[in-house]
């Protein structure tokens, strides 16, 4: 159902090494967010990446292939697990340094440029095989997606505060904690 890669070469090594580095960084950092916000934000990074790939990497647009084959292979699946820790790290820095206002706009730009650099490296390692797409096209996508990601985080943070406050003031909140 999900084929293995044709050869275990540069693209698979790229995915494995970056995945190890990213998840190590996430687990080494002290816990910063409530578990529910972490879970939702991790899933959201994956959903955004997957939705973008559904739209532009499959026919009729079919602007790039991921890893060795046009089929949905095991490393395509593993690659999608690489996005959540990067999203989490971006969020961690944003929250730790209380970046707001113009700083936030600059931060989104820096994150987008870093994501662009990462995508360029991935393309060099043939993780992405472009068929009409180029790395630069991704810049507006990253700018939009990272801004949306941070906005959703702010919304969830606000909702969590309300939930916690309701729970504390009512004695037994929505789940009777």
């Amino acid at each position, binding site marked *: 159902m999900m084929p293995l890669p044709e050869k275990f070469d540069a693209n698979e090594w790229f995915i494995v090494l970056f995945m190890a580095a990213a998840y190590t960084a996430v687990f080494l950092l002290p816990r910063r967010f409530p578990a*529910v916000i972490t879970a939702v934000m991790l899933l959201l990074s994956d959903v955004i990446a997957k939705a973008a790939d559904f739209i532009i990497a499959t026919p009729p647009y079919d602007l790039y292939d991921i890893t060795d084959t046009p089929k949905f292979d095991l490393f395509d699946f593993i690659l999608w697990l690489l996005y959540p820790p990067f999203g989490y790290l971006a969020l961690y820095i944003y929250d730790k340094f209380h970046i707001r206002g113009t700083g936030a706009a600059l931060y989104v730009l820096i994150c987008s440029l870093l994501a662009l650099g990462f995508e360029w490296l991935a393309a060099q390692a043939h993780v992405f095989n472009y068929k009409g797409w180029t790395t630069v096209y991704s810049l507006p996508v990253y700018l939009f997606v990272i801004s949306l990601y941070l906005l959703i985080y702010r919304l969830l943070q606000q909702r969590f505060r309300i939930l916690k406050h309701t729970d504390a003031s009512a004695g037994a909140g929505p789940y009777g904690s």
Partner: protein
Amino acid sequence: MALTAILITCWILLGFYVMKNKQLLLFESMFCWMGVVLLFGDYMLILITNLRLIDMSMRLDLVWASYVYRIVLIPLLVTWCIELVYSVKSFQAKLILSALFIALLTTVEFAADWLQIFHHRAPWKPWWSVTAWSLLLIAVFCLKGFIRHLIKKDLRA
């Protein structure tokens, strides 16, 4: 026509969902929605690209209808199902509602086929769809349980 039909259905379902007095918290609705996008997305990709059991239309309006179907309509229907199942108390009512939603999701899948958004290839049997929807609902109920557990843990902390 297919794109319009899907967009209007989504708009109505979403409108009623927003207005409804909800059982699910925002975190739970989002988590279930995204869980469905991921699970259903992988399932469709395997059927389309690896097993070649589904042919996608190449007409642009139908292609966009398929994106809305995968990313909005199906997750929205499943979220509605979870919402309604959690709003009834008895176990029998929960089972009946789940069975009704499995029937509804199967009907929507074949309606999408009828609207030519995609086409099931020859060996496809309707009971395969029923099995897939049942498994998807079970997985999403598990996700719902998991996120509720996390919320309880966070509120206790």
